[in-house]
């Protein structure tokens, strides 16, 4: 039985690898070029209005989502995803997983140089992964915890030795844990490196300068290895200026006045004005991110009895939230597995219609009425709006929710120790593999499990989803777990899935929304 399972896993892995090598990538992986018919032209400078300033350019230190908007332009990772979320070759041309699932061998591109001129090879892969794994304050150490060591097989072959089979490894290497940087540049940068990553990447754009809260400039890397589907060298653009603009409405105004040409975080109420502007184009695609309510399941807290969390889940009207607060830029959501994840079950809509009567009946069955406190971050109008809407919806089920506003830093501390009384709002920017959206939120004692949820059956299923590399089995494990932590014994209340937004001037061509929400500027170009 056991060996049969392994054999199956082996075949499945082989199939995935072969599929990845042969499937649909005309230039052997690499960038996915513009679907638009027009012929791209070279040159031009583009201004990108970003929702906040980048904090850490060093992927090792980076914690903020916003950082990744720049990482993806400056650095290359071992693998990437295409716009549908499928993992594609990038710096690694191909990969192979051993029969026992404990070794993954990557064949690397041979034509890659970092911006400072040093060569990218297997030794560089080993150095980078070891740096992420072993540096004391590395934010990537937990991503790479399943990796025991990296071997340099030959100059362009690197082998990852795992402590145990770890199915989400490739998805992990798409993002910051798989980004390759020049050792020379990092050592030259010293303590200032994370603000000035000069020469460190191998990606389509080179870092030029960053003035805090003012602008970041990156320019074309003329020696980049990427080519479009016709074999033309990428990138097309000469320069990108990134302007951090915190106010959502002001970002939109900058697009409309032509002071910026690209933005990827648009406030729901502004979308209509962009759609109706003849000079602008609004695109919206699926996204891995979700939004939810932490219901504190700790002993003595308001939601110790999971049925109360289910009652809240039943009573809220998700469609009303996504329509009234987000103007259709988000969609009713029921868990951690987003529609664009491979494990998504499109028919899983457990609380599609608000059912205050059912919630009321459930609470009567428990015996004690539900009253709790919802903590909302002070100064965030949108969160307050959501909380007030939910408050009104819950009132219909005789659930009394009090809203209390606190400073963000204070709420975080209460969350981290599960010492809030009732509930708090929590969003998640999303990860490529459903594991990244689930494990750290649901597994007993995991860092983002701030509802202090614990369910042995769920833990077992999530472990299984990590160790088996068979996609069908992983899918089954995820779906079985989700039924439990969303419906039967809810860990918290999920209310939406996010969407990837992309607003551009019409003359900006080639950019498409990716489910991770990040823009790939290497295929973007400006109409003359």
């Amino acid at each position, binding site marked *: 039985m056991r060996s049969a399972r392994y054999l199956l896993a082996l075949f499945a892995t082989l199939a995935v690898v072969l599929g990845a090598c042969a499937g649909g990538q005309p230039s052997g992986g690499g960038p996915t070029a513009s679907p638009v018919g027009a012929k791209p032209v070279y040159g031009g400078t583009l201004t990108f209005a970003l929702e906040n300033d980048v904090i850490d350019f060093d992927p090792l230190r980076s914690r903020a989502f916003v950082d990744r908007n720049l990482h993806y332009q400056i650095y290359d990772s071992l693998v990437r995803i295409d716009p549908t979320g499928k993992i594609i070759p990038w710096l690694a041309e191909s990969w192979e997983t051993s029969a026992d699932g404990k070794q993954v061998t990557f064949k690397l591109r041979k034509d890659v140089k970092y911006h400072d001129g040093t060569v990218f090879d297997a030794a560089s892969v080993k150095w980078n992964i070891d740096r992420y794994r072993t540096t004391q304050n590395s934010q990537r*150490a937990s991503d790479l915890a399943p990796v025991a060591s990296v071997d340099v097989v030959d100059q362009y072959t690197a082998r990852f030795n795992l402590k145990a089979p770890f199915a989400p490894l490739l998805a992990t290497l798409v993002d910051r844990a798989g980004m390759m940087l020049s050792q020379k540049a990092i050592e030259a940068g010293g303590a200032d490196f994370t*603000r000035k990553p000069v020469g460190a990447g191998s990606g389509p754009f080179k870092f030029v300068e960053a003035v805090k*809260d003012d602008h970041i400039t990156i320019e074309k890397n003329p020696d980049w290895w990427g080519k479009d589907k016709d074999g033309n060298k990428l990138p097309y653009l000469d320069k990108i200026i990134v302007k951090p603009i915190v*106010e959502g409405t002001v970002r939109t105004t900058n697009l409309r006045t032509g002071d910026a040409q690209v933005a990827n975080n648009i406030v729901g109420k502004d979308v209509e004005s962009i759609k109706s502007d003849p000079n602008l184009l609004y695109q919206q695609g699926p996204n891995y991110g979700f939004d939810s309510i932490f219901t504190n399941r700790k002993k003595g807290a308001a939601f110790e009895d999971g049925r109360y969390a289910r009652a809240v889940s039943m009573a809220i009207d998700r469609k009303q939230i996504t329509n009234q607060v987000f103007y259709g830029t988000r969609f009713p959501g029921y868990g951690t597995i987003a529609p664009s994840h491979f494990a998504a079950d499109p028919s899983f809509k457990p609380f599609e219609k608000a059912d205050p009567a059912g919630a009321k009946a459930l609470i009567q069955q428990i015996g004690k009425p539900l009253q709790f406190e919802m903590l909302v971050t002070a100064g965030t109008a949108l969160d307050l709006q959501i909380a007030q809407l939910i408050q009104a919806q819950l009132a219909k089920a005789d659930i009394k929710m009090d809203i209390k506003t606190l*400073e963000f*830093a204070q709420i975080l501390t209460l969350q981290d120790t599960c010492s809030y009384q009732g509930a708090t709002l929590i969003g998640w920017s999303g990860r490529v593999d459903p594991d990244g959206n689930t494990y750290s939120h649901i597994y007993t004692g995991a860092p*983002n499990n701030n509802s202090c949820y614990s369910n042995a059956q769920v833990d077992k299923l999530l472990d299984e989803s990590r160790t088996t590399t068979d996609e069908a089995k992983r899918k089954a494990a995820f779906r079985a777990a989700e039924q439990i932590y969303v419906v039967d014994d809810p860990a918290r209340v999920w209310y939406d899935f996010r969407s990837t937004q992309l607003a551009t001037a019409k003359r900006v061509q080639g950019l498409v929304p990716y489910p991770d929400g990040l823009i790939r500027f290497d295929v973007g170009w400006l109409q003359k």
Partner: protein
Amino acid sequence: MTQYILRRLLLMIPVAFLVSVIVFTLLRITPGDPVLVFAGEERDPAALEALRHEYGLDQPLPVQYVVWMEHALRGDLGRSLRTRQPVTQAILERLPKTLELGSAALLISISVALVVGTLAALRRNSPLDLIATGFTIAGVSLPNFYLGIILILVFALALRVFPPGGYADFATEPVDNLKRLVLPAITLATASLAINLRQVRSSLLDVLSQEYLRTARAKGLGERAVVLRHALKNGLIPVVTIFGLQIGALLDGAIITETIFFWPGVGRLAVDSIGGRDYPVVQAIVLMSALAFMVSTLAVDVLYAWLDPRISYRRQAG
């Protein structure tokens, strides 16, 4: 006079020290763990612990204070916890931008308040006076985040006469720099202008009814000389106090104005640092504004002596 100024300057040292202790303590007893804020979505406990150690936050509070003070006395205010930028550099890089915005706002506020306030006082109950009074009420009641957005929508989006925020370097793009300055400066100036205008008008009205002005008129002085030389100089004394305090208020207003217009100044740094519990940066900014307050009140006191010969600091210093 010199002696008086010197004494006041020396007094600033213990005040600055006290401020530093208070800020240090207040920041640390405010609930909220900086490391959790910086961690964002990455909450691996081992990495958090390593960060805490790197920042020295695992040390006892008195030790943290002494270490910070030791470095500060040598001119090293540490690095930002959030961005790892040296604090001195972070502030020096932004200070000129905030000063530019602040001085422009102050200039608008004071000059308009003086001219319009004087005219309104001289022509009491005229249409101009009514408009000025109405503006005063509106200006004080309108929050500047609202005014800022309205100005952007009208002048940047609808009329397209000014850019919707941002900063341009004066050295390389002087025209662009000034164009980008206009809207935030007006936003920042409005609230303080309203207060200043009211103050100029009312204190001038006080003075205008006084006997010595009748004497001045009686001895045959022209109305112009009466107002400019006699009334205004005397009426300005309380106004100067308000102006001095307005400098501090402008710094507060800059926090919001800079965020709306993405003007990369100290105000924005302050918002991010306070929300993020970026201790070294907040300490430095508070200390800096405390010094600015002390210097501006000293300047106001010195101005008094110039405006009103009856005030002399020599005797008190004696």
